[in-house]
């Protein structure tokens, strides 16, 4: 029972498509930080 569930999850994991790779210009964490900085400068928030 347990082995069957693990096998099922492994199969599901293998079938899951990969997240698209980030390009050189993509950096979500930096974008968020820049937005927060800009918001502080423009709105004082």
């Amino acid at each position, binding site marked *: 029972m347990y082995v069957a569930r693990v096998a099922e999850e492994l199969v599901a994991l293998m079938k899951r498509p990969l997240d698209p790779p980030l390009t050189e210009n993509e950096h979500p*964490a*930096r974008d*968020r*930080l*820049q*937005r*927060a*900085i800009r918001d502080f*400068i423009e709105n004082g928030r």
Partner: protein
Amino acid sequence: MIDAAPLVETHAPRRRRVLAVASIGGHWEQMLLLRGAFEGMDVTYVTNDIRLAQREGLSPCYAIDDTNRHHPLRSLRCAWSAMRIIAKVRPDVVISTGAAPGLICMVAGRLVGARGLWVDSMANAERLSGSGRLARRLAHRVFTQWPHLAVEGEVEYHGSAF
């Protein structure tokens, strides 16, 4: 027929004046990575060696002595430079990624009503830097670049430069 002047004069909103202060090394590198946040603003850079800014084509840039808490005399010289820079630039906001000179500029900025934003360096992964801990009292906002260092109402995490 009378030529009437428009009743309402239209003024373009004044561009925000930002003083971006970062010491040589990782502090400066992080400021460079975050400079996209200043797009469309009047930015003046302050660092320990203006050749760093010249290399990136960033202007205007002022030089300031590097210092830390172990060098009181150098800190005084740094404070004097900071006050002169602040008096000249009259920034709306002082933002720093560290280190001590950034904090000194922030304090000088507060004297003329500038708001201060401290972005603690990513190098400080275990606790805020010494300057960052002081900035909690002196800056209007303090950002950390590590989620586990965020403290409700005191230190915010929004993301990281790297």
